[in-house]
């Protein structure tokens, strides 16, 4: 007979993740678009479309993030948290957070101490290797968006 207690699951589906999933942030339209990218996980079909609006006075700060698409609870929650946490951050700070999250997920030691707020809850995904991609999809897409712009600047 199968065992009916599932302690591991609570690590994955923290209440805060479910809340973000049920009510994802970052759905309000932007007034202008500075960076954008579409991300997709070809294995599961999850899709994310991410757009960034920078501070009109200071092009270094993220004023607002818009994110849409469809996916599992993990990728949707991760995207929702991204929209929350990146708001008001400089691009450099935002990149730092993204890098930090990736390193946590791949279990690399990281000495930086950053306050990542709700994102902390995503760390439980580590124990579910196949789902790490879900958690990182919005972040990879974010980085792609920046690169895309940088790429345009370079050429």
């Amino acid at each position, binding site marked *: 007979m199968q065992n009916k207690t599932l302690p591991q699951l609570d690590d994955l589906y923290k209440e805060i993740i479910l809340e973000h999933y049920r009510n994802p942030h970052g759905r309000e339209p932007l007034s202008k678009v500075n960076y954008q990218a579409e991300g997709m996980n070809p294995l599961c079909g999850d*899709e994310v479309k991410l757009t960034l609006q920078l501070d009109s006075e200071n092009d270094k700060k993220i004023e607002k993030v818009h994110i849409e698409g469809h996916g599992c609870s993990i990728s949707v929650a991760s995207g929702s948290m991204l929209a929350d946490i990146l708001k008001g951050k400089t691009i450099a700070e935002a990149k730092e957070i993204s890098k930090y999250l990736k390193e946590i997920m791949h279990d690399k030691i990281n000495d930086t101490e950053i306050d990542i707020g709700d994102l902390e809850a995503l760390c439980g995904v580590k124990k579910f290797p196949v789902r790490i991609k879900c958690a990182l999809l919005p972040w990879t897409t974010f980085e792609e968006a920046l690169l895309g712009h940088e790429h345009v600047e370079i050429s």
Partner: protein
Amino acid sequence: MFDINKIRKDFPILERKITDGNKLIYFDNAATSQKPKVVIDSLVKYYENYNANIHRGVHKMAEEATCAYEEVRQKVKSFIGARNEDEVIFTRNTTESLNLLAYSLGELFVNEGDEILLSEMEHHSNIIPWYILRSRKKIKVKFIPITDNYELDYKSLEQLVTKKTKIISLTHKSNVLGTVNNIKKIAQIAKANGAVFIVDAAQSAPHLSVDFQDLGCDFLVFSSHKMCGPTGVGVLVGRREYLEKMPPFLGGGEMIRKVTFEDFTTNDLPWKFEAGTPNIADVIAFGVAIDYLQNIGLENIYKYECELTEYALDKLKQFDFLKIYGAKDCNKRAGIITFSNPVVHPHDIATIVDQYGIAIRAGHHCAQPLMKKLNVSATARASFYFYNTKEEIDLFVYALKKAFDYFAIGACNELIKGKINAKQNATTTR
């Protein structure tokens, strides 16, 4: 006759514990099947006793390996009702068989302006090879639509077939919907219109009794790994009339008769299409898998799977918010149950039931166009084989319920029932 307890003992993996105390419940059979001990043993026996390269060797082991390999051709021939063993070609998998056909038939007689007819329920393996052919020759690829009952739209089919249709290539049984298509009927339409007819039997050969000659198609392809055999072996069965005229696909040892510094001539069928050292060990083990399946009997397998499917569909009725894709009639969708729901994403479902040791699949099932047609980005799929049981289904339903409960804490319950939309609900509870 069909002794499920005895059968389960043949599969060592069914003893595997996935999570503490939870034995494996394997419902991902449409992706690949598990292997009985006799098949695994045959690999060991081969490598420990008569491993040798085949066909050109004079020594004893080369002879033994060659005989064992060629015997499997005979077995496949009778298993699938081919006319002759030289019409049975070993490939790596269904995918390679379809690529071989797209390439070689393409070179033989497909020209600019011609059309290839597929359906909306095809696996990527039966779409991309034709897109690749299209990139070389300027042709059209058309798709037969499916009806609201998740069946092929036979009326559209007849309209879509024209003088320009050179090839019709269709799945026998959909890996998502479970739908079994009426191949005999389509074979007549193909014949009447002079089109070559290819059948993708990847999902049917393991579960139904499939007879190549009776179906009346020109080519039939399937994979060993979905029918109790090892990975790395596929089959292409075809009519000699075509195979003889078709140019070779892969070139190398084995498939040649004579090679000079100027040119080459091809070997006889079937070797003409088998280049290089074949997957000898796995082909031989595949022969053992065929014996094993025939011992149980494809009719028995089919009947039992229908029973399981009916049982499962009945149990799933309790989740009235579930959308289940596929024919209502169990006999038309034996073994495959694909579903989605408005709240819990297929990936989350798969992860949660996995915690109970239950392996199901979530995603596009290599049928992205069909997902688009069904208007979903992903679905969950439970697919059965003859070693599964009703008790396993009970546990699956139990785990599913847990998954829905998990996601439906508080007001979300309402959400699941589809009564209130997500945003409204969320704002009121926060």
